[in-house]
């Protein structure tokens, strides 16, 4: 009864002649496409471009911090460099990273649909992202911006004369890209699931992207409002954030963090989805406590909206409101702990292999555990006083965002590379890259925890000499990390031509995306599948294979 296309085994596989990459040719067929898979590839290329810009800026920051004096660049230049690093990495890389690339590519296939609900809005989302991205680059080239990625008022509205308005508008526009992606995911997941695909048969990747989509749709407009108010304050002086006109600069903090705290969950949740898929596949075992992991994503999304004030504990907010927000912050830490243990127990009695995606997933688990636990240091209001605004914060969010999200992104890219391109990446060198990244990462960011404990403030172009040794360690680590990130781009491009042909299901994974050809057809499925199996149903997969053998035989 199964309507799933079955093609020969990997050893004899060829790249199918007709697939979404060969279906149409010419640059216009890409720029005007409505195909979610092509848009995903467009996004993948663009975010990689911005990642390397952000990475180059990170390199400049680390070089400057090699010595205590601000000698490589002037303080103003340093301020611009770290501001642009934050803006590019957060708004142009981390927020769209997994959802707009892997999510775009996989969610329709995972739910058994031919495309997202609104293909044209999906394409519009990429254009908005590109307009936002190009405007940001324009702002950078024509003088940059030095407000930090947080646009803190009144610094951003009254005291700097860099390209705040251009950058603010760029992020405003890019924000709509994110809203459209979220909207598309929500509608698709609600309305376009294949027959038999109930909510609890959805892969956890879909659940976590669903949770992230809710955050994108409800949170991003608040960022848009905050940015518009900054622009208006700067251009015509409306005064909402200006105390001399009866405004309140803390209002900006509330508005900004109302988005920007949930934004960290927008960044991390889809990554968690990747980890669920990867760990299950390479242990050949269903995810331990599926519903707990699914609901913990939703819990993170819900609680994530009510913790923003923990960014403001030392800003003169009421002590009693601090109690509430600190408590809620502790609660939001619990679902993350649940996920980590559920993943660990997914390995229990599995049949584990250690391909690159699995190595990245292990890296994620270790680094995210550190990142999450140090978040508790900051969520507890008392210790936050000592640690906030220091390198401890920097280390904490890099452990979550880079150690967590970027590891998950790379795990996902390697895991689905065969599906995206039809070819395998080279295994040995990519395992090496995963290990190099892990080592480089720890070298770079662990010393920063110590710097923070010692009290070194963040965003310092020059610092007291006693902090130098730890900074030298950090910069040395960043060099290793840089190599770890350059390797994949080289061998993945190489594999486009020379990689082994992957076949449909090189990992013997259970998701619907692995039951169709690689690369998929433009319409994904020849017939819409009828889903009878659970997510991660490896016994069903075995039965499928047996049936194929008997049919062929």
């Amino acid at each position: 009864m199964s309507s799933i296309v079955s093609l020969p085994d990997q050893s004899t596989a060829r790249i199918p002649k007709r697939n979404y990459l060969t279906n149409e040719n010419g640059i216009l067929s890409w720029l005007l496409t409505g195909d979610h898979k092509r848009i995903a590839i467009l996004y993948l290329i663009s975010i990689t471009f911005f990642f390397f810009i952000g990475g180059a800026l990170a390199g400049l920051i680390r070089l400057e911090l090699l010595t205590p004096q601000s000698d490589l660049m002037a303080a103003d230049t340093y301020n611009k460099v770290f501001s642009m690093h934050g803006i590019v990495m957060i708004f142009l890389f981390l927020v769209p990273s997994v959802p707009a690339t892997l999510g775009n590519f996989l969610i329709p296939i995972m739910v058994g649909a031919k495309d997202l609900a609104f293909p044209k809005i999906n394409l519009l989302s990429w254009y908005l992202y590109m307009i936002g991205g190009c405007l940001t680059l324009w702002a950078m080239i024509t003088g940059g911006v030095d407000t930090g990625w947080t646009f803190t008022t009144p610094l951003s509205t009254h005291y700097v004369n860099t390209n705040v308005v251009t950058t603010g508008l760029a992020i405003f526009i890019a924000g709509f890209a994110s809203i459209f992606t979220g909207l598309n995911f929500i509608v698709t997941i609600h309305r376009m699931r294949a027959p038999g695909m109930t909510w609890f048969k959805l892969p956890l990747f879909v659940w976590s992207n669903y949770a992230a989509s809710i955050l994108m749709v409800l949170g991003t407009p608040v960022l848009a409002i905050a940015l518009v108010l900054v622009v208006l304050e700067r251009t015509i002086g409306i005064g909402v954030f200006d105390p001399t006109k009866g405004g309140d600069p803390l209002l900006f903090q509330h508005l900004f963090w109302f988005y920007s705290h949930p934004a960290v969950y927008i960044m991390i949740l889809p990554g968690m989805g990747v980890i669920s898929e990867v760990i299950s596949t390479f242990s050949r075992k269903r995810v331990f406590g599926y519903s707990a992991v699914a609901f913990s994503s939703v819990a993170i999304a819900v609680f994530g909206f009510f913790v923003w004030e923990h960014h403001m504990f030392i800003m003169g907010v009421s002590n009693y409101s601090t109690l509430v927000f600190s408590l809620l912050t502790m609660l939001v830490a619990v679902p993350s702990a649940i996920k980590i243990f559920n993943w660990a127990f997914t390995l229990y009695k599995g049949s584990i292999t250690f391909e690159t995606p699995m190595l990245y997933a292990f890296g994620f688990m270790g680094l995210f555990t550190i990142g999450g636990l140090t978040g508790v240091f900051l969520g507890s209001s008392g210790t936050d006083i000592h640690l906030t605004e220091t390198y401890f914060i920097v280390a904490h969010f890099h452990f979550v965002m880079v150690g967590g999200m970027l590891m998950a992104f790379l795990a996902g890219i390697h895991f689905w590379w065969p599906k995206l391109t039809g070819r395998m990446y080279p295994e040995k060198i990519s395992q090496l890259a995963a290990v190099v990244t892990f080592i480089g990462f720890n070298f770079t960011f662990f010393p920063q925890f110590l710097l923070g404990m010692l009290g070194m403030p963040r965003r310092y172009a020059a610092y007291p000499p006693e902090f130098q040794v730890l900074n030298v360690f950090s910069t040395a680590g960043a060099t290793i990390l840089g190599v770890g990130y350059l390797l994949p781009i080289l061998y993945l491009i190489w594999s486009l031509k020379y990689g082994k042909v992957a076949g449909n299901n090189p990992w013997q994974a259970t998701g619907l995306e692995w039951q169709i050809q690689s690369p998929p057809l433009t319409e994904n499925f020849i017939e819409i599948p009828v889903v009878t199996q659970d997510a991660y149903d490896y016994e069903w997969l075995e039965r499928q294979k047996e049936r194929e053998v008997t049919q062929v035989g």
Partner: protein
Amino acid sequence: MDHISPVLWQFLVKWLTNFAVIPPEASKVAPQMDALLLFMTLVSLVGLVLVIFLVVTFSILYRRERHPVATQIEGSTLLEATWTIIPLGLFLVMFVWGSVLYFRIYTPPPNAMQVYVVGKQWMWKAEHPGGQHEINSLHVPINQPVQLTLISQDVFHSFSMPAFRVKREAIPGRYTTVWFEATETGTFHLFCSQYCGTAHSAMIGDIVVMSPENYKKWLQSSTSGVSLAQDGERLFASLSCSACHNGTPGARGPNLAGVYGSTLTLSDGQKVTVDDAYLRQAILNPSAHITQGYSPIMPTYQGQVSEEGLFSLVEYIKNLDSNYRIKQTTTTTELAPVATAATPAASPAANNGKVSHE
């Protein structure tokens, strides 16, 4: 050590001998902070080791060569409840402990000595009630609670004292307070930790903790001769505050003597306690703070008084317990305008240096 570069060698030796993971514990609250940090670090290490242990053990036991066929397991409510409840419990302990610490750090004791701090691009200006002004440094006595009232003149700054484990944001348009009690003499770092523009990383200074005798000497040697309250009194007269707030029956403004710390009823029926922040607001935005029984005639002083001036006025009103000198000044002004620079002899503001609380 011939095969290693001598520069690098010295560098490492120097670092290894001075290696610290925590700044000096130089305040009363620092050991309390460090106890909680230690507890959290230990819990985190246990958690991390547990996760690593599980991943490594399972990876060895259940790698494909040893365990070719996976056993499918749905989940376990008991186990999941365990790893929900134990972290939750630990996090709640950290929440309660952290909150106690937070309230302690941000609730100044009544006997704290007062220092006012203005943050501006890019310097810290500390104003002592006795008329000592310092830039990018703060001199305090040992074993004496010190309360800082902070404000920023422009953008957000943050007054960070890692050795005291204490930090507070200086915000434009509102007062924030923090306190500490230094327990060790010496010089410690003062940082601005909130990004504030070009010279953010140059907005640093020294906290100098002195023995009581040295501190007394420092107070005497560095006073400008005019205490904050005296400066406030001068402003009070020159801004013509005394024309209305003179305590006479039928005066157009409320009597300010003894007003600090009292509870006022505003014209909209709201009850407020008069503190530093209220006084500042009432000067800058008077129409929003009309005391019951008075008409909204006071003009705003927004833009006419600097933040330092406001601190002086606040300090003056804080210490005002009679209108005797105001009346005297007003009368003198009427008689002979030249004589306004009266000597501050028996003024209520003369007992500064140590802050008097009524």
